[in-house]
């Protein structure tokens, strides 16, 4: 088994209250399902939309992230899967994809000690 980080980008910003609640409910259901199947290694964290970016040798502090809403990472989790192919397959159920967002699947490097 290997570990993978899912980085979630984008968020639903429009839609009626009912549609937004339905979207949330799909997220919660997806999460529950992942958990029940033992894929979730760490439930991760949601990230605030605001923050600072510290940049370069000069350590310039900027307000950020100044990316497009669809590119901002809104949170992450760590899953456990057989291989990258399976981790990708699992991520396809993520409701963020239905609202134009994305899931970045990144294998966590294992350090040999």
């Amino acid at each position, binding site marked *: 088994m290997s570990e993978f980080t899912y980085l979630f980008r984008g*968020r639903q910003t429009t839609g*009626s*209250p*009912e549609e937004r609640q339905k979207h949330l409910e799909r997220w*919660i259901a997806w*999460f529950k399902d992942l958990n029940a199947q033992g894929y979730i290694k760490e439930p*991760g964290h949601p990230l605030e*939309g605001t923050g600072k970016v510290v940049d370069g040798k000069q350590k310039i502090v900027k307000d950020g992230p100044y990316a497009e809403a669809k590119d901002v990472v809104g*949170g992450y989790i760590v899953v456990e899967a057989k291989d990258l192919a399976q981790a990708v397959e699992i991520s396809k159920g993520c409701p963020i994809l239905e609202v134009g967002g994305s899931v970045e699947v990144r294998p966590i490097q294992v350090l040999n000690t």
Partner: protein
Amino acid sequence: MDEREHLFRREYGRMVAVLTRVFGVHNLPLVEDVVQEAFCRAVDVWRFRGMPENPAAWLMTTAKHCALDALRRERTARVFAPEFGRLLQSEWTLAPTVENLFGPAAIKDDLLRMMFSCCDPRLPRTSQVALVLHILCGFSVDEVAGAFVSGHEAIEKRISRAKKALAKSKTLFNVTVAADFSARVPAVRDALYLLFNEGYHGASPEAAVRTELCREAMRLTALLLEHPFGATPTTYALAALMSLNAARLSTRIDASGNLNTLFDQDRSRWDQQLIEEGLKLLELSASGVELSSYHVEAAIASIHALAARTEDTDWKSIVSLYETLAAIAPSPIIALNRAIAIGQSEGAQRGLDEIHAIRDRNRLSSYPFYWAALGELELKCGRHQDAGQHFTAALQSARNPAERRFLEERVAVCRPPSTVSPGF
């Protein structure tokens, strides 16, 4: 569970109401942005953690923070609600003022203010109802269009016109002056009644949508009853009428969207709790001197609710209640309902005679249940062919698949049994 169902929709109305008070009616677009932002923040966190213990309070607190952000960000660029003057401008008074405005009692009043503002008699009634659904019940333009079985563009135009009128009114309706309240409350009740009926008799083919509309109308009526000026006999009568009819709603249209008339409904499935509540409300409505059409309609609904079988119904009382109703607000539909009741108590032929005697019955020609009533009575008289023609006419004005299915079945019942060719 039930409390969390439609949580966003319900909280949308509450957040919009309080934020409109803070920002002023002219800033409605900013209000809507702030509410969307509060939803975004909630979803960002809840999708990972599930809903918190008290999601409604969480949302409202988030809305308050978002409002403070917006007030600080925009205070040089915008004028907010004039009634708070400089209180929202100075950092000294900003937070405590907003804190007060987000108190539970304040929010309840804000909902009423918004409801009364939406029901501005200068707006056409259908626009009032569309605005109530959009602003207070959190229905999107498409969802309102779905409820009214109307096009997106027509509803969008109607809502945006109504919003403009609201923005021009400068300030929300003041519900603290008894005389103003009493002057506006009949329009509010009529809008709620229309909203309920849209759910109960309306054209939407989806049972779920219709249940929702009825439920929203009942929720807003209950809110009206919680206000001392709103808790009048007539409002109680309206609430009674809604409860008593809503008790039959799930048997009227079943899960697959099929329509059942009062005569074929499974009465054991009527919601007894709603019936009891309705009867209690009806009792509370019986004081004072005003006899509103709601009183009479609630009384009719109570007679149906109390009859264990169709044949136990006290049709004579129903006939006389329809006569009272016709005296208050004459309409061909009421006359038709009276005729149907006469058909029940005095025989089908008498019912037909009464229908034929309705003076302005040509106004009913596009109402499918006018033709259906004629069909049922002819059928009872044994005139299958005439009945079939009436049901066919009804079918032509059917407004949704459920009505169509129902009427097709009635047409089929009227067909003579197929002649089997003798098999020599």
